[in-house]
């Protein structure tokens, strides 16, 4: 299966989405990411029982923080699929990219430029 997905996405592999912490998500934004999404296994199918459920909670927490500090809570999202669903992986990538295009770039980029000027 050779599927294309937007080349702007940088994939970070983790052994289980349960490994992803709120801090990892925030750091990505601090470093200038426009959006972050986590793709985990289907809920109920986690090899480690609740890794993907933890990930969902952390995504929610990160979203709340990003909202509170004015970066925007919609820039982070949790997706789930089974390992056989490559087409879905590509679909999620497209969906998220569209969403981020709509929201525009990470506001910190502009702020950084302004401060440097």
């Amino acid at each position, binding site marked *: 299966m050779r599927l294309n997905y937007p080349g702007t996405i940088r994939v970070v592999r983790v052994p289980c989405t349960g490994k992803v912490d709120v801090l990892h998500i*925030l750091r990505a934004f601090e470093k200038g990411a426009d959006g972050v999404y986590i793709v985990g296994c289907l809920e109920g199918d986690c090899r480690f029982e609740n890794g993907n459920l933890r990930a969902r909670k952390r995504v929610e927490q990160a979203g709340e923080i990003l909202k509170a*500090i004015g970066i925007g809570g919609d820039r982070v999202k949790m997706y789930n699929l089974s390992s056989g669903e490559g087409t879905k992986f590509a679909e999620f990538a497209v969906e998220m990219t569209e969403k981020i295009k709509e929201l525009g770039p990470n506001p910190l980029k502009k702020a950084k430029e302004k401060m440097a000027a």
Partner: protein
Amino acid sequence: MIVADKKPIEEIIDMVKDFKKLLIVGCNECVTVCEAGGKKEVGILASALRMYFMNEGKKVDIDEITLERQCDHEYLEELRNNIDQYDAVLSLACGVGVQFMAEKYFGTPVFPGVNTCFMGVTEERGVWSERCQGCGQCMLGKTAGICPISRCAKRLLNGPCGGSTKGKCEINKDLDCAWQLIIDRLKELGRLDDYEEIIPIKDWSTERAGGPRKVVREDVRL
């Protein structure tokens, strides 16, 4: 342990918004266990504040450190050589740590980063509940190991009251009646005779009602 809860980030921003160099100090003890003020929470808060200030176009330097404890001189002393670099400290320790920091570093503004709630247990991940109010004269030996001071809404010493219904307290149907718990456990232990004994009026002077308290132990003083 001492259980604390996170403060809303908006409230924290409001406290520290006028400073240019900020130190966020976590504590490795109770607040780490209750996931409110440990190294991880320090990191998250620091990252969030950095982004907030940058987005506002403000240049604010934020450093992070997590001490073993903030309620003992020796650990707080670790900040001695660097504290003057900072305009303010945001402490994620319980109120005890925040105050000890303020006492020690008199010229540095110190702000609390958590809400300190009570002395309690981890019932399950993410659920903490109160168990002790430090009354200064523990009576758990008479009450089957269940504390009526912290767990009975009326702090009754000879309960239950008339509001106890189906094992629940009248103030909240999800709250166990402490006295029901006491009776159940005494029954289980075959010690219901203890229940027949009237507990005399408690000397509340050792509790917070008697003013700020202090323990002085000549046997261990240097």
